[in-house]
């Protein structure tokens, strides 16, 4: 009879310490979604191409579908839920997506928001071409990207302070 050994994993997710015991092969995306109940991170392909599962691990955008949860033990993880403002209202990137109609079905959106959040820390005033390039690693099937580019530029204008909720400075 096959049974799996559980491994203890400790993470800080969106500013809160979370502890879980999971099999070594459990993906970070599944831990976030099913063990921690943070279903905002979505899984579109499970082979690291579409980017819908992108979360920030110690500030860097990573494909949570390609990470075993055990391999990020001790890390600080930011998901789409952590990109809201401290009072629970929309963060600047999220608000820009809404204002620019940069989402339709919303499935790819969490991956874009985390990616853009990390990007704007590196480049606070991108040109349109730079904005387009920055999002060219995430797939969207609905929007044709045009409004997402606009949202990146709008977020850049709006981002005056860091998003809250445990984002590493």
């Amino acid at each position, binding site marked *: 009879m096959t049974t799996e050994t559980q491994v203890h994993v400790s993470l800080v997710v969106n500013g809160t310490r979370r502890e879980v015991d999971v099999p070594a092969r459990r993906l970070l995306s599944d831990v976030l979604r099913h063990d921690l109940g943070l279903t905002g991170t979505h899984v579109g*392909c499970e082979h690291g191409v579409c980017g819908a599962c992108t979360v920030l691990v110690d500030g860097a955008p990573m494909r949570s579908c390609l990470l075993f949860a055990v391999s990020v033990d001790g890390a600080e993880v930011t998901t789409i839920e952590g990109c809201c403002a401290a009072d629970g209202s929309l963060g600047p990137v999220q608000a820009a997506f809404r204002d620019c109609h940069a989402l339709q079905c919303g499935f790819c959106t969490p991956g874009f928001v985390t990616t853009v959040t990390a990007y704007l820390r590196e480049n606070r005033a991108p040109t349109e071409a730079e904005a387009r390039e920055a999002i060219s690693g995430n*797939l969207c099937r609905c929007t044709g990207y045009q409004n997402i580019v606009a949202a990146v530029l709008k977020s850049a204008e709006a981002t005056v302070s860091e998003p809250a909720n445990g984002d590493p400075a």
Partner: protein
Amino acid sequence: MSTRMFGERITRTEDQRLVSGNGRYLDDLGHDALEAALVRSPHAHARIVDIDVTDALEVDGLVAIYTYEDLDGRMAEPLPLLIPHPSLTHGRTQYALAREEVNHVGEAVAMVVARNRYLAEDAAQRIRVEYAPLPAVVGIESARTADHLVHEDVPGNVAAVMVQQTGDADAAIDSAPHVLELELEIERSASTPLEGKGVLARWDDDDKSLLVHTSTQTATSVRQAIAAKLGLPVDRVEVVTPDVGGGFGVKIVHPWPEEVLVPWAACRLQQPVKWTEDRREHFVSSAHERGQLHHVRVGYDDDGRLLGLSVRFWHDNGAYVPYGLIVPIITSTQLLGPYKPAVYRVEFSSLYTNTVMVTPYRGAGRPQGCFVMERTMDAIAAERGLDRTVVRERNFILPAEMPYDQGLVFQDGRQLLYDSGDYPATLAKLKKLVGWDEFEAFRAQAAEDGRRVGIGLACYVEGTGVGPYEGGHVRVETDGSVVVSTGLTSQGQGHATMLAQIVADELGVPFDRIRVTTGDTRRFKYAVGTFASRTAVMSGSAVALTARKVRDKALRIASTALEAAVEDLEIVDGRVQVAGAPEAGIDLGTVAVLSNPLRYAFDEAAGAATQFATPADPNTPPVEAGEAPGLEAVDFYSPTRSTFANGMHAVVVETDPDTAEVRILRYCVVHDCGTLVNPMIVEGQIHGGVAQGVGGALYERLVYDEHGQLLNASFMDFLMPYASEVPTIEIDHLVTPSPLNPLGVKGAGEAGVIPGSAAIAAAIEDAEQVTIRRMPISPSELFDLRRKRT
């Protein structure tokens, strides 16, 4: 102060929850459910010899393993053939689990249920299925030749042959001064929404009822299908559509095997069961589209006017045809676009192959038809030495000729009758937008810089708002909020926002007091579904009509309460008032209270409606004959036929002289979908459609080898465009309102993708002076065409 909502770029009500990670997609639900995994055929064509589950039994957490023999009652019958047609003489659909034979790689053979998906897959991997492989039929050519058959009882692999004609096209062509023949091909592609399919089912044994969540485009029809297959009364089954991460047509097919297997298992196991597909499963077990081969004969005069058009094509429908002949029928009819050939004949054969089945993908056969017609028009222009827009203009149906009967039967079984549209005006706008007349100067300038550029255009007409009907329900609650329901579903098109805009205007209530539900059979039971660009037309009209009924009732009730004539009343910001005298008015919430005479007051406001509070006429019944309690109404919209939108795209490309890479410099769209409810949403639909059109023109092809193995069943190898591949899209609108519905709207959902391949092919041809008859085209294919030309 009330603002008109209709026609405004209102930000969407859906976005608050979606951008903050609070969407509820299928896999977000059912954390307590058991999970299923499917064992799927690795062979394109094989007999099943044995299924050995012994090793799977070792897996901790295994709950059940099902094969065909476990299926009982109607579950053991093939899945329904959704759209029968007299020409579909040899329709075949699959069994929920393969019975004795598998007909494509990915066909479901066994279902495992376990504590979670990881364990279910562990068990599934250990199940050993013994197959006796059979020869696979792959591609139109081998289907036609029919050395081997997909289904033993389908001669020649022909599911259907269908002909429509308006006269003797061959004679007209034979007697025409000029004749051209073309062979054109479009390769297979697929919808590939970012979220795959998923089903969650819960059987309540106390209530003897079944609740199913599924990522579908038609909750009402899935409900009927599940009830039928499981032998349950329909009113004991409810289907709820969660947030859906895109559909683009693939989720209109129903019931998927899993859509009946999961509920069936949930009933048997008396535990909730969930299944969400992974990406590879979507590639090999959902549905594809686009693969067709066309042979065109066209006769025309010296001016390029079409005297006769004869199209013969072969449609690859994959291993099964649950969706009938809709895609090739749409190709046959929409191929005509905005033109009026004197005589037209179209014949198609729909062929079986040992590949994934073919059902609509955004455009649903129109992109193929548009490609064929537009390449033909370009070929005529080239042969005649005419400007490509001039040839088109000479063949346009003119506004004065509307309504125009093309003399064919459309995909809804009704006349192909264009109701409105101004094609010359659309073209004029497009030429202006892209700078058609100035292009040669641009080309010369570019040539001086060593750059190779080209321009192309393509026109389409799209029949939208297919019936039979859609409905709406609107209710004003006693607190003044408004609840709206419609039966069709949403996959990201902003339906809730769009419908709220309509109700806000029709009923005179604040936009933010309106709550819209779509795709929940508990709230609305009669619907068809979301497909064929029909929501604004069908649900939009239905909801508008419904809101009008509610408004009329509100005014009637208010006129009694205010002792004013109905004609003197208006509803502004949720308040019924005498026009111009807001102080003499009552809130709609109060009207709702009054509309429902009560015995018991459940809150203070309700007290006003109880028998001793209201001065009612003691000689008339509290609820008059023909009336119903409550400030609510239901209404339906059922048009006689579709309404026809149209558009034209122009593309400027640059090709690299060395690498033959194609870069799109400009992409211009002129789009006519009648009245716009929310221009921002419409433009978003166009953007998304254009991106898929670019994908279909340059990147997306599904490749099967001769054994029926899908070689690129992942996002790594099936190339969908990223932001770097999609150009900035310039849009201009024309509005020719539809005369067929109360709002004057036409559908917009699919338009963006329809002319993509045609326009881009035309532009590349123009840049390179090669002949392109096959799409998509890759740089290496362009390179080869260059070599052949020299």
